[in-house]
């Protein structure tokens, strides 16, 4: 649904050049929720704004719903934008218009006749649960409600794609949860493809099917969320299951064991202890529910160096677990 190829954006200011987006490839399939995670300044916002050409990239291709956006200009680009919804961190609502007026704005832009507009506004407000706030002004409603208005407004053009620019970053955790829930629901009910950017790990965890991590204008890893979490050395996994830096003591083996789904329900620690008559020391770990699947990561310590534990590690791998062994530091001479 969204294909971004070799996209670059360079900002020039008084002779200085800053490459905000550096030859990024990104592809989001129809019906998918894709999250781009990164710190502020990583270039993710610029990347997102290039998808509906709020920013014009210096190089690359942007294809949304089969349409090469860079080939469009003027009225045709505006038409294409009407089919790409966007929601914003600070909502971007018109303070001079009521909730209903804000949702009607894109309909006016599209030239929808007045009578039809009122009907459609009602429908959209119903979709986001704001029917009774239609006559309120943005200043009179809460942040979460404002973002709901933003979502209703973004859906006015019946888009196939929704871009979310840190849509929950200005909201408290509970409100964030309810907005994410709404986005998930819209994704499922309307088949809406969502590309979101965020700096919150939690957002990726809650609603993303696939994710990418962006740093210094580049994508450093990407793929389905579950796959990334199972990938040894994954930054996403490290972010979601924070464990302190491993410090294996000489003569022991420290391993991070990642498990998902079925394997999460099998008691691998006790079976390891039983089958190999070994002591398993648990150093830390966490279990998360990712899109209905339990995924967890446990750091265990086994007596004896990695060489002595080959069979044990093979046993874990054989049980469908991902095992990452931390090498012990050189013993002091």
């Amino acid at each position, binding site marked *: 649904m969204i294909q971004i190829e070799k996209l670059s954006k360079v900002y020039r200011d008084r002779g200085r050049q800053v490459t905000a987006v550096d030859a990024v490839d990104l592809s989001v399939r129809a019906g998918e929720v894709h999250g781009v995670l990164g710190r502020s300044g990583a270039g993710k916002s610029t990347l997102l704004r290039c998808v509906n050409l709020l920013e014009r990239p210096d190089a690359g291709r942007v294809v949304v719903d089969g349409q090469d956006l860079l080939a469009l200009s003027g009225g045709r680009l*505006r038409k294409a934008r*009407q089919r790409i919804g966007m929601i914003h961190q600070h909502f971007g609502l018109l303070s001079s218009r009521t909730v209903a007026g804000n949702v009607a704005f*894109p309909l006016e*832009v599209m030239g929808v006749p007045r009578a039809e507009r009122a009907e459609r506004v009602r429908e959209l407000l119903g979709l986001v649960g704001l029917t009774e706030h239609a006559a309120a002004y943005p200043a009179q409603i809460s942040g979460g409600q404002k973002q709901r208005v933003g979502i209703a407004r973004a859906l006015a053009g019946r888009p196939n794609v929704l871009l979310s620019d840190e849509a929950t970053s200005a909201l408290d955790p509970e409100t964030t949860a309810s907005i994410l829930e709404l986005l998930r629901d819209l994704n499922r009910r309307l088949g809406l493809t969502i590309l979101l950017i965020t700096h919150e790990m939690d957002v990726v965890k809650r609603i993303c099917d696939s994710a990418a991590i962006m740093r210094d204008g580049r994508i450093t890893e990407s793929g389905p969320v579950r796959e990334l979490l199972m990938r040894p050395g994954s930054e996403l996994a490290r972010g979601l299951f924070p464990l302190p830096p491993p410090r294996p003591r000489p003569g022991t083996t420290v391993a991070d064991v990642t498990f998902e789904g079925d394997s999460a329900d099998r008691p691998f620690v006790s079976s390891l202890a039983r089958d190999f008559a070994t002591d398993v020391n648990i150093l830390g770990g966490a279990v998360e529910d990712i899109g209905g699947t339990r995924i967890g990561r446990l750091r265990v310590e086994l007596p004896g160096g990695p060489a002595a534990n080959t069979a044990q590690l093979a046993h874990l791998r054989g049980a469908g677990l991902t095992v990452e062994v931390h090498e012990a530091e050189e013993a002091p001479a």
Partner: protein
Amino acid sequence: MTWDEMAPLLRQGTLETLQMTGWSTLFTALGGILLGVLLVITERGGLLPLAPLNKAVGLVVNVGRAVPFIILLMALIPVTTAVVGTSIGTRAAILPLTVAAIPFYARLVETSLREVEPGTVAAALALGASRREIVGKVLLREARPGIVAGLTVTVIALIGYSAMAGAIGGGGLGDLAKRYGYQRFETEMMMIIVVLLVLLVALVQLLGDVTARRLSHR
């Protein structure tokens, strides 16, 4: 002077002042909003970046703001004569008043437009709005309270300027105050004119405040 002698003069003077301020306000509102919008949208990174136009408008506004009104009034006499046909009278005063007030108001409009949250413009662009729609439905609409407040300040300045214009041949309350209050020592006349002007300014301020408040939903 008796009240019967003063009343018709005052009525006539007030009417002329209202005429001068009224018409110049109308033209100033149109010109000031136009220039204010141009200043904002033609700048670098604006909706319609046009550096040369931006510089030209900026220059006109700065020059207009720099010339003291009393000098502008006299300097414009040839222009006024060419456009209006005469340099004396209420109608002739409208031109210099407008020329003086437009740059002043343009800066106030510019300031209010800059206070419109940039996110709303980006959001409107993302929704496929055209530049014209963004200027009309986002920028001007969102800045309406500030635009009205700025116009209030401008109208009050125009009332003051109109008295100056009156003093060099434009008629109105300023002319009355000069001829009767100043040159003939009619203290009563002077005081009544001062009271009338204070009331007029207070009324304009009240109207402006109420309108701005009603338009603001922040």
